[in-house]
Structure formats: structure tokens, C-alpha cells
């Protein structure tokens, strides 16, 4: 059936983890956008108290009862946080911190006291029981389907349907609750229903991945996806994709290192996020660094063109002395080495390097340099005229700004200043 040599039970584990990841990834996007990722962390911790209490009261391990208890605990968390904030001096993050740690501690204590009665222990609260999913299964049309898979699939379907139906309400409430209200969207109700859906997802996922790692499933795919896409639909789909991919990778690496599946899935998602943050094509850190370096290179190139142009301008009146790269290097104060900029300019065909290594602008380079000097001098003129700057204060700001003034903007400035010479009396090239 497969090349990896996995037993059907193992495939069921992977499938369940995939469904679980998918079910978490979708609400995770909206948690991230509404800046309440840590609330999910709180709910995830607090549900433990609910599970413990439900067990204490009903003395049963019936999953429906435990899930019900967990669900109640999640709701209580939300209400307690609101209540504590009523004191005004304790802010939302403090309230959250107080409530979830207390409830989590309560849960651990309850589970520890009853641990000899049930096969629940504080460890599995953290690790989740992904490995044991296949041992609790139900026969459906002759196939042994794990119960966790069934419940997670139900949650996933409900999530997909719910989010599709209420997509626009959810989007507007997340983005701008006030405008949502004005438009007649019951913002508070939408927010509450959303939090309820998060709680349900957390409760059902809890058994598979444990209470803390469910946070990774909720938050990490959304963050990774937000680095890769800009559209909301794109982020949602991508985060689902990341979660689904993380499941088999996490399972296989857990198998090889003999570690819990859930924590390996968390690590996989963390690595995916790190990769997305560093390598994302348009907003990744690496591409930003490259673009910053390119900008510096371009500015250095501009500066070299400027130096050469001014040299030509003055040397038309006095006998030509060839300009050498060493002069350029000493005249520039840029971080990019002048030699690289010189080479790229030569490669682009803007400058020529003669045999005696003296430099000259080509026709094309002359055009480029003219445009640049035009921007520079126009801006100097503008600053002098409209900002009333003194002549000795004009060069520096123009030196910084000249690189960004395009042709259209230069034309506008030229119309505004209506002058052929700059404040120093030099011609503005056209």
C-alpha cells in the first residue's frame, strides 16, 4: 500500500494528525489576526481543569463528558478574564495569566489524585496520545476507524462549513469590530461564537497533541502562511497546507528519534515558520537583506555616475584629466565597495574603463547621470525656493533624495520651480 513501509495503524495516526492540524490551522488564522493567539494558549491550558472536574463528578472516561467539561472550562476562562478586567487595574494579559495557570494547576492536581484509577497522567496531558489513536477505534463498514479521527473529522467539517458560511462576518469583525457593528453585524456574538469554535477545536485536539502543543498547531501555520501570502484566503489555505504537510514529517521524525509525535509535529511547524520567516520570497528576512544590499548598490552606482558627470561638466572648461577608480573610492562614503558598483556599471554599459584604468561615461551612462543630476538640482532648487533652506544646506538632503525622484516627479518639480539653474548657478540638465 505504501513505500514507507508503514502499518495501517501508523497511517491512521498520520491521517488523524493531518485532520487535527487542518482543524486547528483555520481558526488559528483568525486568532492571529485578532491578536489573541495567547488566549488560545490560555484556553488550551484551562481545559485540563474541565476534563479533571468532569472526571471527578461523573467518574467516567466517556469522551463526550470530558469534552463537555473541557468546553465549560474554556468558557469559564473567558468569563473569568472579563471579570478580572473589571477591576480595571489588572489588564487582559495579567487576567489571562492568572486564570489559565490556576486552572491548569487545578487540572494537574485532580488528574494526579485520580491517576491510579485511570490511564490519564500529567505526562500525557503534555505529550498527547497520538501514538495510541488506533487502539481506540470503531468499526465502520468493516474498517476500523479510530474514534479520534472521527471526532476530529466532524470538527473539521463543522469548521469548514461554519467559516465558509460566516466568512464575511468573521472577516469584518476581526478587522474592524466597530464598523461591523455599524453595518449591523452582531460583532460580539460573532466573536463569542468564534471563541467557542476555538474552544471546541482545542478540546478535541487535546487528546491527540496535548495541551501546550495544540498552541503550536493553532499559531505556527498561520504565522508561516502570513509570511508567504497576503490575501486572507491565501493565508487560510496555505496554513491548512502547512499543517497537513507537517503531520507526516512530524510522525516520521518522531518514529526515527523515538520521541512523541505531537512534539515532533510542533517542532516541524516551528522549523517551517522559521524557514518562511527567513526565506519567504517577498517578505522574508533574507530577501529583505538582499534588497537592502541592492538598494545600497544602486545608490553607490548613482553616486559614481554623479561624480563622473560633474567631472565631465567641469573638465569641459579645463583640460581633461582622466578620472581613476581610486579617486572614486576616496570620494564615496558608501558601505557598498566602490569596486563592485564600478563593475556592475561597466557590465550595464554605463561606463567605460580605459586601458590606463581611467573612467568615462558612455552615451547611456550620460543619459542616466543627467537624469540623476537633474533630480538632484531640481530638488535643491525646490528646497531653496519653498523651504527657504540656505545654499550650504542644500546638497546633503538632495544627495539622499535624488535616488527616489523618478521622471514623472522630476517633471512636476520642474514645473513648480520653473528655473534652468540651481541655487548654486549650475545648469539643470534636461
Amino acid at each position: 500500500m505504501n513505500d514507507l513501509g508503514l502499518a495501517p495503524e501508523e497511517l491512521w495516526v498520520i491521517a488523524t494528525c493531518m485532520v487535527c492540524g487542518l482543524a486547528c490551522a483555520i481558526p488559528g488564522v483568525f486568532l492571529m489576526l485578532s491578536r489573541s493567539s495567547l488566549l488560545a494558549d490560555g484556553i488550551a491550558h484551562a481545559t485540563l481543569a474541565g476534563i479533571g472536574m468532569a472526571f471527578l463528578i461523573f467518574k467516567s472516561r466517556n469522551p463526550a463528558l470530558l469534552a463537555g467539561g473541557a468546553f465549560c472550562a474554556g468558557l469559564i476562562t473567558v468569563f473569568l478574564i472579563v471579570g478580572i478586567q473589571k477591576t480595571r487595574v489588572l489588564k487582559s494579559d495579567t487576567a489571562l495569566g492568572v486564570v489559565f495557570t490556576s486552572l491548569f494547576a487545578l487540572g494537574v492536581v485532580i488528574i494526579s489524585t485520580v491517576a491510579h484509577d485511570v490511564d490519564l497522567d500529567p505526562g500525557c496531558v503534555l505529550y498527547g496520545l497520538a501514538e495510541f489513536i488506533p487502539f481506540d477505534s470503531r468499526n465502520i463498514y468493516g474498517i476500523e476507524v479510530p474514534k479520534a479521527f472521527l471526532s476530529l473529522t466532524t470538527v473539521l467539517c463543522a469548521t469548514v462549513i461554519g467559516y465558509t458560511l460566516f466568512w464575511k462576518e468573521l472577516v469584518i469583525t476581526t478587522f474592524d469590530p466597530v464598523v461591523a457593528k455599524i453595518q449591523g453585524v452582531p460583532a460580539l456574538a460573532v466573536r463569542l461564537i468564534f471563541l467557542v469554535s476555538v474552544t471546541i477545536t482545542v478540546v478535541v485536539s487535546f487528546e491527540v497533541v496535548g495541551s501546550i502543543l495544540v498552541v503550536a498547531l493553532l499559531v505556527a501555520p498561520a504565522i508561516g502562511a502570513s509570511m508567504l501570502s497576503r490575501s486572507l484566503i491565501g493565508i487560510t489555505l496555505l496554513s491548512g497546507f502547512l499543517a497537513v504537510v507537517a503531520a507526516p514529517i512530524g510522525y516520521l521524525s518522531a518514529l526515527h528519534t523515538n520521541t512523541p509525535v505531537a512534539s515532533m509535529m510542533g517542532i516541524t511547524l516551528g522549523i517551517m515558520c522559521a524557514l518562511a520567516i527567513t526565506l519567504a520570497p517577498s517578505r522574508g528576512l533574507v530577501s529583505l537583506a538582499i534588497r537592502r544590499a541592492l538598494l545600497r548598490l544602486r545608490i553607490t552606482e548613482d553616486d559614481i555616475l554623479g561624480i563622473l558627470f560633474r567631472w565631465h561638466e567641469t573638465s569641459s572648461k579645463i583640460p581633461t584629466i582622466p578620472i581613476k577608480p581610486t579617486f572614486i573610492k576616496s570620494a564615496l562614503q558608501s558601505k557598498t565597495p566602490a569596486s563592485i558598483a564600478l563593475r556592475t556599471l561597466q557590465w550595464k554599459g554605463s561606463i567605460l574603463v580605459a586601458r590606463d584604468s581611467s573612467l568615462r561615461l558612455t552615451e547611456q551612462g550620460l543619459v542616466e547621470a543627467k537624469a540623476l543630476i537633474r533630480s538632484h538640482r531640481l530638488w535643491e532648487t525646490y528646497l531653496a525656493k519653498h523651504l527657504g533652506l540656505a545654499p550650504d544646506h542644500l546638497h546633503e538632503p538632495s544627495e539622499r533624495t535624488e535616488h527616489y525622484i523618478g521622471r514623472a516627479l522630476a517633471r512636476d518639480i520642474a514645473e513648480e520651480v520653473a528655473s534652468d539653474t540651481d541655487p548654486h548657478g549650475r545648469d539643470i540638465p534636461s
Partner: protein
Amino acid sequence: MSLLLLDSYNSRIVLISTMLLGMASGIVGLFTLLRRRSLIGDCVAHASLPGICTAFLMSHTRDFFVLSLGAIFSGLLSAWLVSALCARTKIKEDAATALALSTFFAGGLALSKMIQTSPIGNKAGIESYIFGNASTIIQQDLYVVVGVSLFCISVIGLMFKEFVILCFDQNFGASQGFSPLLLDLILMTILCFCTAAGLPAVGAVLIVALLIIPPASARLWTDNIRYMAALSALFGMLSALIGTAISALMPSSPSFSGLPTGPLIVLTAASFFIVSLLFGTSHGLLHRLNTKGGMR
């Protein structure tokens, strides 16, 4: 019963060290709370687990001093990551915190499982750093805990006014020559120290409670920051004392391994908080009801 507890020299030391820890974290937590960084403590605490495990895997000793170095290192790393993510990308602080917290902790769990199944000797008790267990604490651990707690308390004591100005009005502080960056770094560092010191008794998952709950309780009783610091230290100390005592006095049998210390300390702190929330003389809910009735 309490006689039993104070009988052995070792349990006395355990009590004293957890009380000191409670004091230290109460005071340090006061400033993270006022700086509105309460939950960064959660991140730092969870992130200390992989640090401990890595330190153990590298050194093969259970010496708490070595392990806590690992904890402090990875805690600081996570705090730095969160602030770097916020500064360099468009990721918001809460998402960055949750991301760092959960993935570091995932790493820690995986590493601790590896240690358990590995043939390395002398590994008993690594797992107890997750929930904390005062009974596994040995004497050398205690010296570290006592030293670190005293260090944290004295740093805050010496730089009290600087931290107050940082939390209240950092721009004004900067205009007076107190660098917010440097002060924040110091605060984060002693936060990591405190977290590391709390690992043996309270554990990585719940130490943050000792950083949040005592100062939050203290806030409800007073508007004076000095009283608040004292009260927060007191709440932290009492929670640690009562929690540790209950955990130590619980009978353990072969089928019942006893209650972990961390959750008990946190529950004690939580009961102090409930009392404060209701009866706090400055901002407690009853007080608010009263003043509302009286004034409006």
C-alpha cells in the same frame, strides 16, 4: 505534622529555598506585570525546558547549576526571538510569543523523551523539571536556588527606582539618561534567572504563575508600589510555603506517586488571588461595589 516537616534538615532547607524563590518571583513579577510583559514570562519558562535538556545531554550531569545555565540561555534566546520577530517582521507580539513558547516547549518535550529512552545514566529527575517536585531536590540544587533568589531580590532592591521609571514612563526615563533597552535587558535576564531557579520546585509549565499571581493579588490591596512589592513577595512566599508543605505531607503509596509541588503552590497562590479579588481593599470587587454605591 508540621513537626514532621521541620524534623529533617533537608526539608527545612527545601522550605526556606522555595519561600525565597516565592519572594523573588513575586518581586520580579511585579515589574513584568507593570511593564505589561506578564506573558513573556510564560514564554521564557516554557522555553527553559529545551535548555535544561540540552545542558544535560551535553554535560551528562544532573548538577543544577549547569542545567540552569542552559535554562537561562534558552529562556533569554526565546525572549530575544520574540522581540526580534516583532521588530523585524510584521508578526504581532502575542503571535510571536505563542509561537516561541509552543515550539520551544515542543523541542523540550522531544529532548526530555530522548533522555528518558537514552542509555545515559544519572538521568532521574529531568522530567520533574516540567511540573516540579520538591522531594527530588538535593542539597546542591538548593544553594543555586537560594543564591539566584537572593541575587534577583538584591538587583531589584538596588535598581528599584530605575525599574519604576521604566515601567511608568520610559520616555521620561530615557530623557533622564536611563536607557530603556538596557533596563529591559536586565529585567529579562533576572526574569530568566528567577524562572530557572523555580524549575526544581515549581516546574517549567507553571513557574509563570508565581510571576503573575502574587503581584496581581497584591495590586488589589494597595496603590503604593512599595507596599505592593512587599505584599507580592509575601504572597509568593506563603504560596510556596503552603504548597510545598502540602506536597511534602501528602502520603505517597506505590500506586500514588504523590502530588507534584508546582501545581499545589500555584493553587495556593490562586486562592490568595480569589480572596484578594473579592476583598482587596483598593480594587477588590466588593470594594468597588461599595464605592460605586456610595458615590453614584
